[in-house]
C-alpha cells in the first residue's frame, strides 16, 4: 500500500514519553502511528495505559522524550513554544472530559473563545460561532450560561468551541466520560456528522461501545499500541 504524505495529518515514529518521577514512568513506549485526513480513530485501554499522555503529545501540550512527531510534515520538535501554541490555536481542537466552559460567559461567548488566540480580527466571529453552534445543534441555547444547560449540551458547546478554529484535527479525551448513555449517543451521533463532513477525529474512551463507533480502533496497554 503506497501512501502519500500529503494526506497525512500526523505521523509518530518511535515516540516515547518518560516522566522523570521517582520511580521514572515510561508512559509511552515506541509509539508508531499515522493519521490521515478524515480519519476517525478511537484509543482505548486500561487506566494508566498512556492514552491521555499520547493525546497530549499529539496536541502539542506535552513533548515526547524520544522519537519523531510530524504534524502536517512539520517536525514538531523544531517548533518554538509560540509556534506550538500557534499550531494548537489553528490546527488542533480539544474536547475534554470536563468541558472547561467558563461559567460566567454565555454559550456563544464560550464558543468564540475558540479562535481568539488565532490573532484574527473579531469581524464575522459571531457568525462563525453561530455556525459552529448550529453544527452541534445548540444555537437555541446561544445566550444561556453553561450552568443552565445539561452536561450533554455543555459538551456539545465545547465541541462547537473546538470546531470554531477550523482545526485539522479534533482531539477528544474521554468526551463522553461524564455523560449518561443518552447524551453519549447524541455526542457520538454528532461525531458521526462532523466526521462525515471530513473532520479528522482522535478520541479516547474506555467504553467499548463508544470506541466501536470510530472507523479505526487503537488499543493501548502499558504505553504501547497493541
Amino acid at each position: 500500500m503506497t501512501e502519500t504524505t500529503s494526506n497525512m495529518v500526523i505521523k509518530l515514529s518511535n515516540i516515547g514519553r518518560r516522566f522523570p518521577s521517582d520511580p521514572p514512568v515510561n508512559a509511552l513506549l515506541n509509539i508508531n502511528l499515522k493519521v490521515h485526513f478524515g480519519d476517525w480513530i478511537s484509543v482505548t485501554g486500561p487506566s494508566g495505559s498512556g492514552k491521555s499522555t499520547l493525546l497530549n503529545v499529539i496536541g502539542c501540550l506535552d513533548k515526547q522524550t524520544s522519537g519523531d512527531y510530524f504534524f502536517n510534515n512539520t517536525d514538531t520538535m523544531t517548533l518554538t513554544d509560540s509556534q506550538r501554541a500557534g499550531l494548537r490555536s489553528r490546527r488542533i481542537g480539544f474536547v475534554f472530559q470536563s468541558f472547561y466552559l467558563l461559567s460566567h460567559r454565555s454559550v456563544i461567548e464560550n464558543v468564540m473563545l475558540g479562535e481568539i488566540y488565532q490573532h484574527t480580527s473579531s469581524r464575522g466571529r459571531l457568525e462563525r460561532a453561530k455556525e459552529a453552534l448550529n453544527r452541534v445543534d445548540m444555537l437555541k441555547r446561544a445566550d444561556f450560561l453553561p450552568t443552565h444547560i445539561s452536561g450533554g449540551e455543555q459538551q456539545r458547546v465545547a465541541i462547537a468551541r473546538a470546531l470554531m478554529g477550523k482545526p485539522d484535527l479534533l482531539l477528544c479525551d474521554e468526551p463522553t466520560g461524564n455523560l449518561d448513555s443518552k447524551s453519549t449517543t447524541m455526542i457520538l451521533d454528532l461525531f458521526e456528522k462532523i466526521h462525515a463532513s471530513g473532520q479528522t477525529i482522535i478520541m479516547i474512551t474506555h467504553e467499548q461501545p463508544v470506541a466501536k463507533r470510530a472507523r479505526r480502533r487503537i488499543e493501548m496497554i502499558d504505553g504501547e499500541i497493541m
Partner: protein
Amino acid sequence: MTELEKSGITCRDLMKEVLAGLFSRPGRTVLTIMGVVMGIAALVATLGLSQTAGNRIIGRFDELAATEIVITAKSQNTHSNIPVLPWDSPERLLRLNGVVAAGTLSMVAVDNALVRASLVSDPLKQTRFQLSVQAASPGLFSAVRSELHSGRYPDRGNSDRADRVAVIGSNAAIKLGITGVEQLPAIMIGDNLYLVIGILGNVGRQPDLLSSVIIPEGTARKYFNLGSPQSVLIETKIGAASLIAHQSPLALRPDNPSILKIAAPSEPQRVRNAVQSDLNILFLLLGAVSLLVGSIGIANVTLVSVVERTGEIGLRRANGATRLHIALQFLLESGAIGIIGGILGASLGVLIIVGVSFHQNWTAVLDPVVSLTSPLVGGIVGIVSGLYPSIRAAKLEPVDALRSGT
C-alpha cells in the same frame, strides 16, 4: 508553512478577556478595588490636607511678620553725615526677585520744632504738638501696607521737587483737628507751611507712622539736611524673606555689605516647612501603609483567582495561548483593578479634602499632579501586586492545569 505561524491575541480580544474576568466575579472585584481606593484616598487626602493645613499655618504665622525686612546701619553711632544706605536703595532692592515693595524711612531732625494746624488758632485749646516728623520714599507706603483715609500719597515728583507736602497719620490728624483733605488743610512744621495731601487710615507695619507727619524724602533732604536714609523697609513674597535678607546687603552696599543690619523674620518659613513635612511624613506613611494593605489584597485575590481558574488556564493554553498571554491577562486584570482603585481613590480623597476644608473654613489646596498621577500609582500598584500570581499562572504546564482544574 502555516503551522509555523505563532499564536497571538489582538489587543481588543485581550482587553475583552480582562474585562470579562473582572466582571465575572463582580463582588470580589469591587472588594479588591476598595482596598486600593482606601490606600489612594488616604494618600491623596493626607497630601491635600497637609497642603491645606500648611497654607493655614502660614496664615496663622502672621504673614505680615513673615514678609518684612528692615535694614538699618549696623553701628548706632554712625552719624547721618556718613551715608550708609544709598538713596536709591528701593530701586536696587526691587531688582531682587521676591521683593514686593521697598521704601526708605527716616526720622527727620526738626530741632524740637512743633507742629500745628496752620489756620485754626484757638487760644483755649492746645494747638502745637511735639509730633515726630518722618521722611519716606514713595515706595514706603506699600511696603508698610498703609491704607489712606483720604487724599493721596506723595509721589516721586513731590520728592524730586522737594515740595512742602505731608501725609499725616490718623492719630496725628485727630490731634491736629484735620478730618479730610478736601479743604486743602495745611500744617506748620516750625515756621514752614506744609500742605496736607493725605491722611493715613491704617498701617500694617510701623504703627508709629499713625502718630507722625510724613514728608517726602527729597523735602527732608533739602530743608532738614537728611544725609542718607536711616532705614529701608522691604516687603517680600511669602517665603522669600530669608533669601532677600541674604541678598540685600550686597545689593545695597556691594563695597561693604557688613555695615548693614538686617532685621529679618525668625525663619517662620522654616518652622512652617518643618511642621508641614512632619505632617506629610506621618500622613504619607499612613497612606502608604493602607496602599500596601490594598496591594496585598490584590496579590491575594489574584492568587486565589489563579488557583480557581487553573482549568481555564489549561483550556486557554490548549486553545493556543502562550505563557505570555496568560501572564498578561492576569497582570492586566490586577492593573485594571489598581487603575480603577486609583481613580476612585483620588476622587474620594478630593472629596475628603473639600469636606474637611469646608467644615473648617479652610481653603482647599491640592496639587493637581497628586490627583492626576493617582490612577498611574494605582495601576503600578496593581501590576506589581499581580506580578507574582501572573508568573505562577504562566508557569503552569498546560497538561497539569488541565488535570488539576475543572
